């Protein structure tokens, strides 16, 4: 985080040194500086959403060394559950969380106990292939039920509301809410892991599953609780996604990739690092989009590849 502020400062100062061709350029330069600042700000807020995609992934990998390839598709599934809930019950998206979160948590518990617990072990292939298969199943199941049409949840006035920060800077209310929620989720996870009995159980089972059983922990149950928690976070991410932009059954893999990139950039094992990772991806994407609309996704991937090349352990790796 510390490096970000001076980096932005350097960037703006560098822009200011670009030669002006007339006096009229000064105002334009200032405006475009504000544009860039706005862009970066939006990127930071977007990063919060990506951090939330990543938090669920990171949690599962930390507890049971499982990378859920269907993670992105589960986010999309949550979005569709929210869609069904809001349309059939006539409630708003935020209220739908009351339904979507328990539903997804229950799905997570059942999924882990019935299917994924059987794939855990030393061999890497079974969990990878089973979750890949799951990804295909969810995508095509959603395709059958809802068709490939793009849909979106309507959040009402809050979608377009924005707050002016002065000096031409403005942020959307919704992105700010998303960012605050992301921070709350990460803070909550940290608290859960380090201050509660359940978190203790997660850490112990992750350290040594065999001895954890000998201490009375039921691993099957502990893992299932971890997955339930992960999907509860996925539920929140899904609702936010649904409100923010159009979605359809095929966008899952991209969400998985953004979450994964955030985890790798942040450093395995660090929850707050994941937030930084998400912000870096978000900022890269929004800056890329400003330079050329076709470059927004590429810019994010390139940022990831650069970090992978020069600091593969991530920015804040947990020394284990």
């Amino acid at each position: 985080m510390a490096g970000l502020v001076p980096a932005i400062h350097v960037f703006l100062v560098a822009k200011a040194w670009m030669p002006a061709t007339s006096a009229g350029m000064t105002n334009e330069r200032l405006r475009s500086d504000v544009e860039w600042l706005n862009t970066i700000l939006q990127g930071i807020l977007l990063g919060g959403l990506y951090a939330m995609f990543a938090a669920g992934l990171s949690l599962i990998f930390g507890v049971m060394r499982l990378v859920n390839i269907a993670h992105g598709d589960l986010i999309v599934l949550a979005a569709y559950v929210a869609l069904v809930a809001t349309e059939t019950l006539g409630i708003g998206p935020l209220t739908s969380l009351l339904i979507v979160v328990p539903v997804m948590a229950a799905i997570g518990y059942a999924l882990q106990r019935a299917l994924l617990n059987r794939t855990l072990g030393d061999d890497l292939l079974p969990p990878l292939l089973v979750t890949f298969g799951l990804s295909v199943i969810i995508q095509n199941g959603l395709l059958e039920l809802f068709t490939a049409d793009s849909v979106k949840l309507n959040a009402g006035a809050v979608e377009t509301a924005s707050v002016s920060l002065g000096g031409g800077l403005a942020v959307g209310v919704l992105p700010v809410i998303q960012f605050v929620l992301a921070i709350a989720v990460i803070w909550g996870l940290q608290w859960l892991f380090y201050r509660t009995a359940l978190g203790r159980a997660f850490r112990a089972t992750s350290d040594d599953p065999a001895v954890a059983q000998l201490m009375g922990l039921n691993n099957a149950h502990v893992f299932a609780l971890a997955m339930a928690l992960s999907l509860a976070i996925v539920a929140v991410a899904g609702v936010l996604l649904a409100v923010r932009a159009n979605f359809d059954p095929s966008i899952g893999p991209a969400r998985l990739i953004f979450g994964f990139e955030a985890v790798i950039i942040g450093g395995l094992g660090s929850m707050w690092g994941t937030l930084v990772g998400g912000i870096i991806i978000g900022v890269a994407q929004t800056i890329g989009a400003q330079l050329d609309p076709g470059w927004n996704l590429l810019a994010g991937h390139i940022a990831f590849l650069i970090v992978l090349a020069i600091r593969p352990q991530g920015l804040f790796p947990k020394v284990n």
Partner: protein
Amino acid sequence: MSDPLLAVRALDAYYGDFQALFGVTMQVGEGDVVAVIGANGAGKSTLLQCIAGAMHVRANAIQYYGVPIGNEAAHEIVARGIAMVPEGRRLFPSLSVEENLLIGGQLGRKGPWNLKRVYELFPMLEERRDQPAPSLSGGQQQMVAIGRALMANPRLLLCDEISLGLAPIVIRDIYARIPAIVAEGVSLVIVEQDIVQALKIARHVYCLQEGHVALQGEAATLTREKITAAYFGV
């Protein structure tokens, strides 16, 4: 006549095709301290793993107060009142000393053992309660491991080679606390390579040799020669 605390009846145990235990029979009464000795590979740890539920065997082969538990899962067996101090300590490295102890008490079984009582038994642990478990010395880690198992308020404590890798003075220190544990109503099965300590502390002794019970009896009645013969299968 009521059922003993633990009865092992004709227990066979396998690792895949390899048979590790052959018809082992053993009994532990309330308040007993039973030592299981034998050379490396004799099957001592395997025996404890079977009792603790880490290995599944025939249900009737292991009975707890007459109830067959041989094929129950480890966490179910802890709930019944049998706790294990694993070989090599196996503390949870991400957890602090106190957190390791608290994990032991996760199930919330009723009994005399709680954090306060464990710290009374092992005062040097209280000073280090928030330190990460791996930062402690071998002897201190062993105490944490014992305390962790006690937190489950077991009726039966299984100790797997608690003297392993420790200096003699540390071993004596740890064994000096065993009587306090027994006094609280906990029975013990102690697997030991240190025969001297085992004979000092235990009332009954079983000697395993290549998966068989080669010798059993009251510690006081067993002579050096008999033990050596049984230990090495001479």
